[in-house]
């Protein structure tokens, strides 16, 4: 895709347009900056934007003059960097794309006075459209990257495995349990069981907002994997509403021990391990 708008036969219309744009650099960049800064509603100063656009504009001229083969690549790289930083700083898609499309408007206003440049303007317009799309693509990719990073960070944050006592570990689950989370929780829990030799695991679901059939399925899977390793699983943190939903949905936890609070689960596990708990 890259460079397909840059015909190797340097055609004269591009050259003329380039020369024309170079002659009116100050005026065009000024108007361009003005258009973009109004759209940004004071989030970037005119001076900053102007500095950015001066560089961009010289690159555009180099592309338009057609003499310079590297210019197109450079221009794309600079635009990619620009849209990436906009995506990271929370600019909207419109504000980002405007950075490119406003240049068209700025040049258009100028060209209306010089009617003989219309075909040249059309070529220029095509190039700018392509660059606009490129900017937008990079913007979308950068946003997706941010979302993916955040999801990964959240997954990591939300699954600590805690040692409660000799031979008893707990996993406080916070947030909705989907299959990706269940997989991660399961892996971490089982690895800890094997590493520590603990025989009791408490799954605390106080922080799980709703327990539907899918979440229950994930819980049951985890419990059954824990049992395969030879350890026992206790589910704790069942809130009154959650209990009602579980019964209403007809979910069967079978012979899995369920407790209201983490404290109850710990006591249960301690008793099973043979500890006597009481006041001195």
């Amino acid at each position, binding site marked *: 895709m890259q460079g397909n708008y840059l015909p190797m036969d340097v055609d004269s219309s591009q050259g003329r347009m380039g020369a024309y744009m170079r002659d009116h650099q100050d005026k065009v960049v000024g108007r361009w900056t003005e258009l973009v800064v109004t759209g940004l509603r004071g989030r970037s100063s005119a001076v900053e934007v102007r500095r950015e656009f001066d560089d961009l504009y010289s690159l555009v001229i180099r592309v338009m003059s057609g003499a310079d083969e590297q210019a197109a690549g450079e221009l794309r790289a600079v635009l990619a960097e620009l849209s990436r930083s906009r995506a990271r700083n929370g600019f909207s898609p419109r504000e980002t794309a405007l950075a490119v499309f406003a240049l068209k408007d700025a040049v258009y206003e100028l060209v209306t006075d010089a009617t003989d440049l219309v075909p040249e303007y059309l070529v220029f317009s095509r190039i700018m459209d392509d660059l606009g799309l490129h900017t937008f693509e990079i913007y979308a990719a950068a946003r997706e990257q941010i979302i993916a990073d955040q999801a990964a960070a959240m997954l990591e944050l939300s699954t600590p495995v805690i040692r409660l006592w000799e031979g008893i570990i707990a996993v406080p689950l916070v947030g909705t349990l989907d299959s990706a989370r269940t997989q991660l929780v*399961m892996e971490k829990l*089982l690895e800890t*069981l*094997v590493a520590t030799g603990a025989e009791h695991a408490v799954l605390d679901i106080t922080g799980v907002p709703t327990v539907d059939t899918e979440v229950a399925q994930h819980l049951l899977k985890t419990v059954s*994997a824990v*049992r*395969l390793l*030879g350890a026992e699983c206790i589910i704790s943190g069942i809130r009154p509403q959650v209990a009602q939903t579980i019964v209403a949905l007809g979910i069967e936890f079978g012979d899995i021990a369920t407790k209201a609070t983490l404290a109850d689960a710990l006591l249960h596990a301690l008793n099973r391990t043979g500890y006597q708990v009481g006041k001195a």
Partner: protein
Amino acid sequence: MERVPILKIGTTLFVSIQIDLQDESVVRLQEDLAEELAATGARGVIIDITAVEIVDSFIGRMLATIGSISRLFDAETVLVGMRPAVAITLTELGLSLRGVRTALNAEKGLALLNSTVNGTA
């Protein structure tokens, strides 16, 4: 085909699987174990799968079958040393190995056997 050795220790048969499990070797193990259980009257079977990294549905099912066979000879089967990845695979396959007991390691498996055998005696 590689064979899995069966060791008799007291009233317990000890099987440690140290090879990559092929379907044939598991079937052979099942046959050998049945013979051995009938011959020795062992009360417990410990199968150590610490070295097993991959299981499929067939092997999972055979492990459950071994449990049921042992039960017919009035012996308890304890599967010990299962790796997390193996446990996850078996769960995903929907195999919860109901007839088989499990323990984290051989020592705990032996303790479990002793407690159940003594409990029923």
